[in-house]
């Protein structure tokens, strides 16, 4: 069992959980994920690790309550424990040796972009963060991002906070003025697709982090297969980071929607139980 040792509500949908997971905390690196299962009857879901503390033996997950398991998790409190946390899985991010990097987080994607920005800053890289949200109410991790990044930009779709517009608007503006040699984009599939499109024209190496459907997370089921540069890759073992210019985002979006009907059904059931 893996107990929750800290819980912090970041916005109406997104919650930070710190779990005691000493084996994982000892090994995990930015870009890696864990599989979480709440209880004996639970499903296994992949969640990228947002932060870790090797000495305290803890890992942090920042989770948006969108599906059955994430909603159930949101009802758990400090002292409650999940049955399983498996990891660290996937390959750590290969940062290379950039000089100037832009890290882009879209919505809850900021949770995964944060350890990337933190790692780049620790490597002495000039790091710019662009964080995009639908509106002011759901802005997360601004303070944390500002603390590690050299420059921080925030956009909202409705202009209620920061700049009105999309992360790509800021990205295009920055890249026209200055030279960057790495972009990391984490967020909704369509955001990553358009970031990759933009950086391709500037010729900037771009890493995206994918979160497709998985069961085991160790290469066994093949449910997470994704086409990258025309080749089939398993996101769980070959990724979850991939070259943004080579990923087939449209296929990824199609495959990700497969269980939406069943999931909506499960969520309704849950509302029944709790409502």
């Amino acid at each position, binding site marked *: 069992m893996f107990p929750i040792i800290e819980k912090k509500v970041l916005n109406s949908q997104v919650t930070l959980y710190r779990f005691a997971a000493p084996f994982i905390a000892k090994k995990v690196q930015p870009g890696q994920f864990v599989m979480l299962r709440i209880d004996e009857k639970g499903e296994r879901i992949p969640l990228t690790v947002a932060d870790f503390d090797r000495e305290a033996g803890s890992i942090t997950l920042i989770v948006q309550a969108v599906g059955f398991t994430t909603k159930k998790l949101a009802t758990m409190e400090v002292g409650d424990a999940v049955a*399983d946390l498996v990891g660290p899985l996937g390959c750590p991010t290969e940062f290379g040796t950039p000089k100037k990097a832009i890290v882009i987080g879209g919505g809850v994607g900021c949770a995964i972009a944060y350890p990337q920005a933190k790692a780049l800053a620790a490597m002495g890289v000039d790091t710019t963060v662009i964080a995009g949200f639908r509106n002011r109410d759901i802005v997360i991790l601004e303070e944390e991002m500002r603390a590690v990044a050299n420059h921080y930009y925030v956009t909202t779709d409705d202009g209620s906070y920061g700049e009105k517009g999309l992360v790509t608007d800021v990205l295009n503006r920055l890249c026209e003025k200055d030279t960057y040699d790495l972009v990391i984009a984490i967020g909704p599939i369509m955001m990553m697709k358009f970031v990759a499109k933009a950086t391709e024209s500037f010729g900037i190496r771009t890493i995206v982090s994918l979160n497709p459907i998985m069961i085991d997370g*160790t290469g066994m089921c093949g449910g997470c297969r994704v086409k990258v540069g025309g080749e089939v890759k398993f996101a769980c073992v070959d990724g979850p980071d991939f070259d943004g210019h080579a990923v087939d985002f449209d296929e990824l979006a199609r495959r990700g929607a497969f269980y939406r009907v069943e999931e909506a059904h499960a969520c309704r059931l849950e509302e029944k139980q709790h409502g």
Partner: protein
Amino acid sequence: MADMSPNKTPMPEQEPTVRNKNFGEVSLGYTPEMAMGEAKRCLGCKNRPCVSGCPVNVQIPDFIGKIAEGDFKGAYEVISATNALPAVCGRVCPQESQCEGKCVRGIKGESVGIGRLERFAADYFAKNYEAELPEIRKNGQKVAIIGAGPAGLTCAGDLVKLGYEVTVFEAMHTAGGVLMYGIPEFRLPKAIVQSEIEKLEKAGVKIMTDMVIGKVLSVDEIMEMGFDAVFIGSGAGLPMFMGIEGEDAVGVYSANEFLTRINLMKAYLPEYDTPIKHSNKVAVVGGGNVAMDAARSAKRLGAEHVYIIYRRGEEEMPARGEEIHHAKEEEIEFRLLCNPKRILTDEKGLVSGIECIRTQLSEPDASGRRRPVEVEGSEFVLDVDAVIMALGTSPNPLIRSTTTGLEANKRGCLIVDDCMKTTKEGVYAGGDAVTGAATVILAMGSGKTAAATIDKYLSERRGNHEKS
């Protein structure tokens, strides 16, 4: 005098049209009377050909003799002396090509139903007795086992009996490996697997789940933690795909994914959270036991039509005869001598059909089976909404790629000698990680061999310590 009836005592089974709508066990097991009757068909041959066909060396005529006498507990004790998972083997071993394949009674008529008797003894014992724990004197040495599947559990069971402190590291949340995620409930009830595992735990085997070795710990780190030897039984978990057009469509699964959702995650039961699609027309590509399991599971989820697509004929199918027979009884539709060319999709990217081409068999290939050759212009389309690829699996590279000095062959299988010793000092391996996808009993046999080798290696080291 032995009962000279040429036929095995039939196994009571659920009716095909009933069972293809539920996940309950197909074969219901012998009654004590049936078991005693079948046991009396054994001639008790002196040279014991059946034993030579058993990878874990069960003393078959001895346990059958006990059943014939009505000493069912005694029969179980004979089996469990060499077999760590009797209730499992009695159900899933390919007896026809092992013990029963060597049975003298099989020359004229049917062999003795050794598998059915083994199952009976194991089930009878589990229902009526508590396993007694033998007094084990610990020898102070520690062995780590990677993977709680048939190879690892067998190795663990043998070593714990010999006095070793045994820890099994399992990647999934439940021990059992393929017995839990691969083989369906209707062939091998999961409660039986769990009770076999509980017996091992009671005997002192420590199982740590959620530990993906190669990620959370390396083999070298395990050795640094004070383990004197390591056994790798990590299986062959990576599914293969065909590489044909449309394979990335929504509704194409590996058999691993489909079966894991059903068996391990229990997605077919409403109280479990893992989702599963209930498709109406399903094509399963492949001719092995896994293909039969996937097809029969799809039927039980309510599919109206389930097809097995296989590029050779029935004779060449690697699946057990019994599985093919059961699948046919359950209205699985066989489309033999044809091979998928591409998967068709609708405008949303969902599977809408599978295009196949007919094949003919020509000369035998390297596997000894006749090679299928496509018949030009014979393409046809099967109307389906899901495709399950059951083409085989290969070993996961996670451990070999993170362990220095551990060598593998071109297919990614770990290289071992006859005693299951790898190329790395103190490290042994067995099961599918060594052979590629094979059977439960072969994995168990290799786990047993490895346990004996590890014992020899560590008792020599123990001897040396005592001398110095």
